[in-house]
């Protein structure tokens, strides 16, 4: 059939023949249906801000976990005569070695008051901060989701009591308690670490453990509330009723329907918990209640840097800006995850 010009449109008998189903189908282009994960991943990959944040997070992780292993300086190593060097400056001794033809790795961020290379200290500090963020979030995830799903799934008086507990913890002024708890369990933990069988506590350091304990005691309530409300709404969905009507067991309902539908929320909430944990750790370290010397965290580095602010502002600015960058990237990545997994869930 020749191309038709719509203006001089001529109808032929052929035009009025019934169209076949195949011809009709050609017109209807159904978009292929995409699975939940694939769809979420597609949305995530398209989100430029989230992807940039992810790259930043990965780069920071490489610098915190891999680079220190091959770095020529150690975080606790004090270099004689190299106190308070400006960035990229060598001490007289080092200068002499360079003149003698030796290669000396530059102090990219200078050195601190004890002659320790500041770049490696900042890297170690961000390692501690990241570890705190990741481990604390994992603790929160486990406690919060178990507590929340039990309360939501079983309901009744159990739910009532469990949620009252959550309410009370919620109204407690958290920062006061954090300060108090981290201060009071520091000593007992140190004692415990010296006894047989608990030496492993020494490796982590009692302060880190007390920070984790604080999170385990106080910070899971938000997660528990979110999980509970998710479970409550999911439980009432028709497909759960339908599954129950078809004779599905409790276990199957939890696995097949509740968990799969919760998982997006869990991932998103946990990711957003990481920066908040890092936030709190840096806050505590800044107040001197964080990790123990000589182990640095970004908060304690910033706190130390405050003292020499007038002369050595970079000692404060480097850890301070890095912590902002870490929290910002995690926040933005978490926002991206939320948009990808649940476009409707906005808060």
């Amino acid at each position, binding site marked *: 059939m020749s191309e*038709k010009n*719509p203006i001089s*449109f001529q*109808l032929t*008998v*052929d*035009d*009025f*023949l*019934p*169209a076949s189903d195949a*011809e*009709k*189908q*050609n*017109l*209807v*282009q*159904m*978009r292929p249906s995409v699975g939940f994960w694939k769809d979420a991943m597609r949305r995530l990959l398209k989100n430029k801000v989230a992807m940039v944040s992810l790259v930043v997070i990965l780069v920071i992780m490489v610098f915190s976990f891999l680079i220190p292993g091959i770095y020529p300086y150690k975080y606790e190593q004090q270099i004689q005569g190299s106190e308070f060097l400006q960035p990229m400056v060598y001490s007289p001794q080092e200068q002499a070695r360079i003149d003698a033809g030796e290669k000396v790795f530059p102090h990219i961020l200078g050195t601190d008051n004890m002659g320790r290379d500041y770049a490696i200290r900042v890297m170690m500090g961000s390692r501690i901060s990241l570890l705190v963020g990741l481990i604390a979030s994992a603790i929160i995830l486990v406690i919060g989701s178990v507590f929340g799903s039990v309360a939501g799934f079983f309901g009744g008086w159990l739910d009532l009591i469990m949620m009252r507990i959550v309410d009370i913890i919620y109204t407690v002024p958290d920062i006061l308690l954090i300060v108090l708890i981290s201060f009071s369990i520091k000593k007992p933990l140190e004692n415990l670490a010296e006894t047989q069988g608990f030496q492993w506590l020494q490796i982590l350091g009692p302060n880190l453990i007390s920070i984790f304990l604080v999170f385990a005691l106080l910070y899971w309530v938000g997660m528990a509330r979110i999980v509970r409300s998710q479970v409550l709404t999911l439980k009432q969905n028709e497909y759960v009723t339908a599954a129950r009507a078809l004779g599905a067991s409790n276990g199957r309902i939890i696995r097949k329907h509740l968990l799969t539908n919760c998982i997006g929320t869990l991932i998103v909430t946990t990711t957003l918990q990481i920066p908040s944990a890092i936030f709190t750790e840096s806050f505590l370290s800044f107040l001197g209640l964080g990790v123990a010397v000589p182990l640095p965290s970004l908060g304690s580095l910033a706190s130390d840097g405050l003292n020499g602010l007038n002369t050595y502002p970079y000692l404060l600015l480097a850890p301070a800006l890095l912590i902002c960058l870490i929290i910002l990237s995690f926040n933005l990545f978490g926002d991206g995850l939320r948009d990808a997994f649940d476009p409707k869930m906005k808060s």
Partner: protein
Amino acid sequence: MNEYLVDVRNERLSFFTPAGEVKALNDVSLFVRQGEVLGIVGESGSGKSVTAYSLMGLTAHPGRLVGGDLYFNGHHINEMKERDMRKMRGNEVSIIFQDPMTSLNPVYTIGNQIVEVILLHTDKNRQQAHERARELLQLVGINEPDKRLKQYPHELSGGMRQRVMIAIALACEPKLLLADEPTTALDVTIQAQILELMMDLKKKLGMSIIIITHDLGVVAGMCDRIAVMYAGKVVECGTTDEIFYHPSHEYTKGLLQSIPNLNEREHKRLVPIEGMPVDMLNPPKGCPFAPRCGSCMKICLKQMPDYTQLSDTHYSACWLLDKAKFESQGDVQA
């Protein structure tokens, strides 16, 4: 210059979404005479509400009028400024929405929300506006108006709230009332009451009504004329009798077959319309209903049919009508 209260000519309206241009209205023409009730029937997404909103200049972002002319009560809507449009809204033309549960602001009293529109468009003072609000509530059949005026929306039932919405709409005695699925969200018994109330008020106040619905039962009793819309086009338009007794478009026929008829003696099976509505992001070149049409022909997939005038008041866009003409011409030639 214009005998019609509402005259929509070749309206084209698109939503510019991130995924592309959605042609929500594609060459829609309609008119409503003074004191007439027009029903616009179609399924979700057919463009019936969009048509109504565009008459009030209420097209939601990212929608935009891209062609055609809209006239209402002597105004050329296309060229109206937002300021003048505001003076017209709620005054010359009002609207009732589908869901009375969410259409009233939850944090203000009923009285506040009625008085607001009276104060806006009339010279009445607060006292007089309050008095008028009382009258309006009585007019729409709400008892204890003084008590109701002080209540909040959540304290009223759905039917009651829809009556309040009608009271707000009628506060300034508009020339045209748009009713966007006014009964869809209500109980069946309440639906009838609301429709009856609307007809009653129409008789008292003499306004025109455009009632938008997907329920042919609603339009049957109320409307003078009916326009059937499908995928952003008016596919058939005629008087209520013409649409119900002489449907000429396959989609209209499908719609009529899919409603139960209580007068039918023997059990006739309801015939659903098979298939899904078209994707408005890339609408097909031909008749949009073709993929779902039982009598689809080759031509239907290629080109949109023109309107065939069946009577002074009845026209329809379907190739089957052209086929009949073509064959009769062929007979003459042969």
